């Protein structure tokens, strides 16, 4: 049985300066209730690992606009103009990571691997400062694991063991992030009793979830 809390209670342990992973792709599959609670809580100086800077008026994008993020690790920031402005002014450090590399760096942190070898980024600025290795005649970049103190993930249905299902294209980074953090908070649209979620439909095993956040429920 997992801790069942409101979004506000669930984000309370997140301190200033924490390293966070936040699931979602352009707000699809993003735990918006958790990002809103974090915004209201005033937490700042965050390092955020997420696919993109989203839109200025929603989810992670609002944390960017409010100046809560000190360092952003993402693959794309183009649809949130404030992110580019804060990067250029030096207010927010941005590390751009190819999307597939981002997913694998997070996954290998949760999967007990020391890194991943990828051809992506060879011959570009991405390879700067990284080790190259040749395997069977092909050159790869060594990309290292990305871990976090907390992961905030989105689920459509979650049972009291934390087993979760995220619908459709909302899956994106939610599974790998749930695996890679010390403490994972799963926001859910619908909390169900144990046995109500078909094990065949589980997209995030409950063992990766520490806290289930649901609006108003106990």
């Amino acid at each position, binding site marked *: 049985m997992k801790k069942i809390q409101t979004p506000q209670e669930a984000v309370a342990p997140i301190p200033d300066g924490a390293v966070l992973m936040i699931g979602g792709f352009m707000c699809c599959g993003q735990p918006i209730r958790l990002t809103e609670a974090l915004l209201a809580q005033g937490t700042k100086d965050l390092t955020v690992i997420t696919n993109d800077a989203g839109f200025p008026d929603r989810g992670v994008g609002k944390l960017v606009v409010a100046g809560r993020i000190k360092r952003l690790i*993402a693959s794309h920031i183009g649809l949130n103009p404030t992110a*580019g402005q804060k990067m250029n002014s030096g207010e927010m450090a941005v590390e751009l990571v190819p*999307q597939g590399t981002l997913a694998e760096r997070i996954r290998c942190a949760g999967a007990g691997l020391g890194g991943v070898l990828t051809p992506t980024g060879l*011959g570009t600025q991405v390879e700067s400062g990284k080790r190259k290795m040749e395997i069977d005649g092909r050159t790869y970049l060594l990309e290292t694991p990305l871990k976090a103190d907390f992961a905030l993930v989105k689920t459509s249905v979650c049972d009291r063991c934390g087993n979760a299902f995220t619908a*459709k294209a909302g899956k994106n980074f939610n599974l*790998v992030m749930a695996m890679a953090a010390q403490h994972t908070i799963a926001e859910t649209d619908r909390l169900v009793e144990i046995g109500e979620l078909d094990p065949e439909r589980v997209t995030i095993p409950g063992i990766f979830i520490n806290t289930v956040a649901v609006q108003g429920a106990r």
Partner: protein
Amino acid sequence: MTQKPKPTAEPAAGADKRVRIARRVAAELADGSLVNLGIGLPTLVANFIPKDKTVFLQSENGFIGLGPEAAPGTEDWDLVNAGGKPVTMVPGGCYFDSSLSFAVIRGGHVDVTVLGALEVDEEGNLANYMIPGKMVPGMGGAMDLVVGAKKVIIAMEHVNKHGAPKILRRCTLPLTARKEVDLIVTDMAVIRVAHDGLILEQIAEGTTVEAVVRCTGCQLQIHQKVGEF
């Protein structure tokens, strides 16, 4: 190298150019192929896939079977494309997470990726993700797509908005990938990237080989039988 004269802009309207490019790219897609279309102009290609071909579209955010944009009032915010817009799914598709999506992309399971470009050069190098100091949107999935897809098609206007060539001897902007581009389709020409340079294979109806050469910033080998499209 001699300095090329300043190219003249094409008279065709912007929308017509884009349709011409999209239609020509669609003709490259084989029956049964898995294709990823980039945001913007490449997205238009979906409108011109012949009805007698089955082509599945992969969406980098986690599914195969990308359909048209959702009609107003039917939006499902759990189903968006790589630009964050609500879309639909065609029968025969499936969902997966980002790790698997990029295994599909990087692992060579995507037959064709179609992307826009800021610059392409005669080595098949591509620059399409940033203009330092000006526009730094990030590479998103583009670096993985061009490295992993079996065939990389660039769909873009032949010259930039100032009339300057986008096809160059060497890219000047930060690269998205080295030597990965296979084919360049513009409003003026179809150009194949060979190991020893660029080959002009087709020109658009209403233009000439000379005009294409004038609007291109590097040497073009002219195919023996240049076709029209």
